[in-house]
């Protein structure tokens, strides 16, 4: 897996949000995008994910395994995204939340096994029927990440996923994310304005022109 960002920039009504970006990310590698608030960090992620609002215009190219993402529809992109909030669906339990992300075409046994494996990897075995509203903040974040990964994305986007967690939790969850993207061998793009998130990874600064 390899993600390339080539001379990519976004304009809103003719105004450029940030100077054209160039970077590469290999499978298992994290890129941390930093910049002041309002510089378009979240907009960049939504452009990569395909959820960007049509008033924005994209220039340059985004390539995942040499296929351009520009103009592709959401379903074919295979990009996973974790938002600042965990956005667990409140009307579904833990296992149902995970099951929603599983690809279709698996038999019931396979689905159950995949969910149990994922829960075990998060030290949350047996949480299947728990109400998501009763989970702790750290547990919610882990379920949210597992759910994103179960959809088998080829690229993972993280929009300040650690901002809502306290210090000790941050550290362990960051390790959790890193180990999972390395196991899945997919590149991850992380948006943050906390310098400690940028340790040991490639940093891309967004500059307001």
């Amino acid at each position, binding site marked *: 897996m390899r993600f390339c960002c080539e001379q990519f920039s976004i304009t809103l009504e003719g105004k450029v949000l940030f100077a054209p970006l160039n970077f590469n990310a290999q499978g298992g590698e994290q890129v941390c995008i930093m910049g002041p608030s309002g510089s378009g960090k979240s907009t960049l992620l939504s452009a990569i*994910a395909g959820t960007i609002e*049509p008033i924005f215009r994209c220039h340059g190219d985004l390539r995942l395994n040499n296929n351009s993402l520009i103009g592709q529809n959401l379903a074919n992109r295979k990009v996973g*995204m974790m938002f600042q909030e965990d956005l667990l669906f409140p009307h579904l339990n833990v296992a149902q939340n995970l099951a929603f992300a599983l690809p279709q075409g698996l038999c019931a046994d396979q689905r159950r096994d995949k969910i149990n494996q994922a829960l075990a990897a998060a030290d949350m075995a047996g949480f299947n029927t728990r109400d998501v509203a009763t989970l702790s903040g750290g547990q919610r974040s882990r379920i949210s990440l597992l759910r994103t990964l179960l959809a088998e994305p080829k690229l993972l986007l993280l929009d300040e996923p650690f901002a809502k967690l306290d210090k000790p939790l941050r550290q362990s969850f960051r390790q959790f994310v890193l180990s999972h993207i390395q196991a899945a061998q997919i590149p991850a793009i992380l948006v943050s304005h906390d310098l400690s998130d940028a340790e040991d990874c490639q940093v891309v600064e967004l500059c307001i022109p």
Partner: protein
Amino acid sequence: MLPLAIGLFGTLLPALNYLPSLGHNELSTTAFSTLFNHPTTFSATWLTLRVGWISTFISLCLALFLFACFYLRPSWRWINAALSPVLATPHAALAVGLSFVIAPSGWLLRLTSPALTGFDYPPNWQTTQDPWGVSLILLMVLKETPFLLLMLLSAAKSVPIKQTITLAQSMGYHSSIAWLKLVLPQLLPPLRLPICAVLAWSLSAVDVSVILGPSTPPTLSVLVYSWFNDADIALRLQGAAGAIWLLGLNLASIAVLFVLPRIAWPWLQGWLVNGQRRGLLSHINKLGTAVAVSYLILIISSLFVLAIWSITKQWRFPDPLPSQWRLRYWQQTLDQFSPTLINSLSLALLSAAIALLLSVVILELETRQAQIAKHRANPLRYVALFYLPLLIPDIAYLFGIQVSLVFTGLDGQYLPLLWGHLMFVLPYCFLSLAPYYRRFDSRYWHQAMLLSGSPWRSFFQIKLMMLLPALFSSLALGFTVSMTLYLPTLFIGGGRFPTLATELVALVAGADRRLIAVYALLLQGLPLLMFVAALALPRIIFRHRKGMRI
């Protein structure tokens, strides 16, 4: 909107003396001159304006008063819980219940006689259908106050009331003055359309005016309605002119409502900042509990007395309760009127379901549109469009619709009737669902799309399921609205589809109180059942989901 325009046009033409089927082919103002020469027109107009404005004004004051007294108190929970069942009460059923309580032979005098009043026979008073319309005003206040309270509640969500009051108190303002000077000016502007709807309804309601309103003269809407139904078909033209006259009064009243704040504002501004911190009103809030309790007692006794009457065999005047009971009226009614019940239920369920479906489609399209459009489409314009049928007296366009249905041979059939119900049900379904639908966090939608890649699964499994409680209550509201429709059912159905509402109003004219009580109770009970189900079902489905509690 098209049927509304057709209906208004179809009323306007006969009002201008054009109704070819009756041999009137030339436009003239004869109908209007006979209308204005009619002896009761002006007294009926005066009565209508008086009843409409007074009841709207009292409802508004009462709603604001109760809101200010209770909103920040823990007892608000009780008021809030009482709102939905009262709102779900069809006004005709409530009117019948109220008349059973306050009539000279009603429950109120039965409970106090002869101990307090000394009456052994019902006194010769006119407490219902009184010539001043007091009982009609009382009913309208009872019915409209909870609606305005609900609207206040949704307006209050965007105002930091508690902080505002605390801030003002720290400057030495009494809390009631702080309410008047700081909170009210923020709450009233969003309340403008609901107040207009209340006023329009009070000016034009037919069913409750037949039950509780005076008869000589009746209110204008009842007068117009009786002309439409007169055996002398020439009176149709006069009726159409009357309906247009009522429409004019209605529009003029709404215009006054819009102009009044603008005139009063410069004068009020001085008062707002004059620094006065206490006033006569400082102590009035102690009355809040008394007002709320007497309000609830009146409502509950109105409904309770229906239940008693429906199982009564014999109830002599000053006895507080019946001396003999029996269930025969229930059995007899349930045996006889199954077509009435089926009509009511099928119309209500179908129109509510279709209205809900349409509302979801419109709102989903609006959401998509808002993503594409540069700025969010101004939702107020939509809302005004949906309020339109609520702001125009229904009698003004129903006659026109009836005329065009007769013209096309579609009158008295089920589908046009269903469509007519839909016209009234859709605004309520849409308006009650819209705030929840628009507030839905679009990130959940994006997350579901990214995870599943399927718009269908994201829509049905995530969005609609998360909105399920709002969908249920919108459905229940639509059901209630359809159940209460009186005039549209008569006009569009051509009298061929008796429903609980139409039968009840017909019975009130003379039938047995016990039979009336059975009908009123059914009309009251079915919507209540729907509301209870709408509240209970999401709670049962999501009983293990804390995040789904509203």
